[in-house]
């Protein structure tokens, strides 16, 4: 029994994630039941006016799913790039005491490149929202 318990609660095995699975099941159950409940509990008096989109009271014009400003895409793309660069800091941060100053200098170089990219996109106006 003891070995099993250790096995189940050790932080390095996949089984330490088991409670998370439990929680996921619980959360799923909660969300599902609530969704069903609200579906069955509420009244259903549908009219066509009620079911159209609300656009400040005036009639809806065209489809809402039009291309949005390219800025948003750009933000998304930049996020992907910079976020991944940030990910690189994590393994470094875990080991940085062992790596010492040498590693620090390497990371400074990395940050330098990071900043180069950052300054570049700034200068290119990728982050300029005030038009």
């Amino acid at each position, binding site marked *: 029994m003891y070995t099993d318990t250790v096995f189940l609660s050790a932080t390095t095995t996949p089984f330490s994630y088991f409670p998370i699975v439990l929680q996921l099941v619980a959360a799923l159950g909660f969300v599902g039941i609530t969704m069903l409940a609200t579906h069955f509990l509420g009244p259903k008096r549908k009219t066509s006016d009620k079911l159209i989109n609300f656009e400040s009271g005036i009639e809806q014009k065209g489809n809402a799913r039009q291309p949005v400003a390219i800025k948003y895409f750009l933000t998304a793309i930049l996020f992907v790039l910079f976020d991944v660069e940030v990910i690189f800091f994590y393994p470094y941060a875990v080991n940085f005491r062992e790596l010492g100053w040498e590693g620090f200098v390497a990371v400074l170089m990395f940050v330098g490149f990071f900043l180069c990219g950052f300054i*570049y996109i700034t200068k290119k106006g990728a982050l300029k929202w005030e038009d």
Partner: protein
Amino acid sequence: MNALISTALSGVVLMFVGLFVRNKQHIKFFAIAAIIIAFIANLAQYPSVQLGGYVMYGMIEVTKFGVLFNAVALGTTLLYFLLSGSEFEKMGEHVADYFALIFFILAGISLAASFSNLLMLFLAIEIMSIPQYILAGADKKSLKSNEASLKYFLMGSFSTGILLMGITLIYGAAGSFEIAALGLGAESVHPLALCGIILMVFALAFKVSAVPFHFWTPDVYDGSPTVFTAFMSTVVKAGGFVAFLRMFHTSFAGGSISHHWTLILSLITAGTLVLGNFSAVFQQSVKRMLAYSSIAQAGFMLFAVVSLNSMGSQGIILYSAAYSIATIGVFAVLMKLKDYTFEGFNGLARKEPLLAGAVAVFLFSLAGIPVTAGFFAKYFVLSAAILNGRLLWLVVLAVLCAAISVYYYFRVIIAMYFKTGEPEVEQTSGGFKAALVLAIALVLVLGLFPNLLLCWL
């Protein structure tokens, strides 16, 4: 190593040059200066690696071969800048960015020439590929360019996925990423490793556009802005071959393992030769013809890989130089013309004798006629295959294909010299002409004295 650092830094610098230099005609000079510096920096490393490779963290091993290949790549890129640098300015506002991307590609190439770890191989291939996707789509308004870019991107990343799967399977079998320490040459080959090697053959064949993984090439090369096609189909392709060669000659050469992939690769080579040449024959546009001819030339370069001996590495250096210089030159002249069909060249010799002469020399070189660099390039790769001993059938096939290649290369020569017409040619500057003469001189000098290049190896 120097080449890698200097090109990567140059790329960053160029990016910023674009931000601070207003006149876009000046950017080219920065690029040329940067590439000259990179060239010199690369050569400066030669004495230190003359006796043995310089290993860095088990990731990179700079060897004489790597330095020499970098010199070739940087040198041909310099020539490319000199010849076509001004074409960049027609591509819109982001001239400096395009130069920067080219430098990043060069960084990838120099990595490809000196990786000693599968991780670096992967990075090299990707650093080479990703900027190309952008360059292919540089002409944002043109649907053809868009399509080229999208197609290249999808196909390129697909092959990356396959390459990665190959690497992973090899890792699963060998437990290491160091190409010198994979130790797969034992008597029996692990099935995972076998699958991995085959996937890698496929993926790299994809990158160097070998049949049957070539289908993206003509469309992409045709659709991309011509100035970038010139670069993508030459220097970058050579970089792919170097990666291919280094990988397979270091890791998969020994013992029984080479039997498994050389057969596949020799079939690929045969297919590439035959299909590339036959398709090129039927093209009406010179640009598209060059696209197919680049497939055909890839077939020859594959000889260097498949024949597994030191002639191969000499051959790949010479072939890269000869092929890149000649193709860059032809493209440079092509860009000065309005009409990219064969008829567009009609009567060029009468109107612009220098341009026509240059194109003729370059095409001779591509066809492998003696006294041009292309002859010795072909000579070396064929020698490599003959030395191998088991590939004589392939050699004979290659010879037949080389004869076919004369057909479509000479169509241009015939159009220029033997037909009459009024080609529309842009005014060319004195600098362009000087660069063209330089290129001709290089082709001829390498054609007479290939050892000027190879004595460094």
